């Protein structure tokens, strides 16, 4: 076994997922590449969204890839960190908003 579940060198092997299912792999990568093209949102904006989502799903490959992608696109560290705070706020908010449920149950069951 490899010394760790995650190897940074594995990022480059991402395309190998097509080996065992070429049709689906192709569909996925075509879709993936189309998603990140300039559109109603700029490729730069999409890169920042990807960075935030990467932290939400805590994927080390995506964090590596989209930090570098952001650097290339001229995204600076303040912008990157703000994007992460958006992820953090939604994540934290998603927990906290369930507090309403907790409060409802608490109140309902209490005298």
């Amino acid at each position, binding site marked *: 076994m490899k010394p760790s579940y995650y190897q940074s060198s594995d990022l*480059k092997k991402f395309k190998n997922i097509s080996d065992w299912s070429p049709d689906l792999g192709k569909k996925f990568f075509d879709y993936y590449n189309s998603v990140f093209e*300039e559109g109603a949102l*700029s490729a730069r904006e999409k890169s920042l969204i990807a960075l935030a989502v990467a932290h939400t799903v805590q994927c080390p490959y995506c964090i590596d890839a989209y930090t570098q992608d952001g*650097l*290339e696109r*001229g995204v600076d560290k303040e912008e990157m960190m703000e994007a992460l705070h958006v992820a953090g706020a939604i994540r934290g908010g998603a927990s906290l908003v369930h507090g309403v449920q907790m409060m409802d149950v608490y109140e309902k069951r209490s005298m």
Partner: protein
Amino acid sequence: MATKSLKGRVHQLAESTRQLDFLKNGIFAPGGLLPTFEEKIKQSQSLPLRPKTLEILQMNLGYMCNQVCAHCHVDAGPDRKEMMSRKTLEKCLQILEKSPVSTLDLTGGAPEMHPDFRWFVAEASKIGVADFIVRSNLTILRANKKYYDLPDFFKAHRIHVVSSLPFYKKEKTDRQRGEGVFSQSVKALQMLNKVGYGMPGSGLQLDLVYNPSGAFLPANQQALENDFKKALKQDFDIDFNQLFTITNLPISRFLEYLIASENYEEYMQRLVDAFNPEAIANVMCTNTLSISWDGFLYDCDFNQMLDLKVVSPVQHLDDFDLDQLQNREICISQHCYGCTAGAGSSCQGAVV
């Protein structure tokens, strides 16, 4: 950030042979992790690499500079004293008169620091080339009172000004080029705008050069140009014409940085992965000749810094013979991967 050149620090990478050793061994050694540039372009049937029509004469007036940028491929700085002699400048004028080049490109160091700079510009502009470029680092326009009138001087000779600005914000710019460089560059750009440079309809061309401030490649040139234009206009009311994205080549101080920050192998891998066979047809050595301060001839400014002279019986201005020179093979090594990554890179920006 270092305040002296590699040469001034007596660093081993000040020697071009050490840089070349580095580029030839390790990951690029026979049987190594990565293919050499020669092997790579052989696959795309581009070997040997030969020049096409000569269009650009790039003269390096000397390695003295008021800045000591961390990524500098020239290893320029205030401590560098190499300068083109008057005799060599005169020789360049003679060659310019006889050759069919459409672009004259003055670079350095900071070419404006050369004591004969103004004389040479005046003489060369009399000969008349379609595009007369001066590569200005911007801060030189603010470095001393004697340079304050340079924007007017450029204008009088219809110079095409190409200036480096690694980013449209302070932090990244100053980390690469030195504390205070960004604010001085902004002032210099405003001075250039004031005399008409970069302004719509003026015919005075002001282009900016973007180099990544670290171990990564430049993104799409057009997208970055849009971001630069928007930010510089909004924040400082600055106008300019085009943005050229240039990839940092793994030589000189950028190589020093790559090694010291342990980015060398990954950066080279990135360049190799991003190899674009389409870019090879348009690399700048195919239409450029580079002349060093001491009159030697090179395929490009990068080869000049690696002391890879043209592979030709004609290696010096004293023996200049264009027909013979055009017959040569271009001298390549692994640094060339910087010119062929992604959309390619040259002194005129992306090439595909």
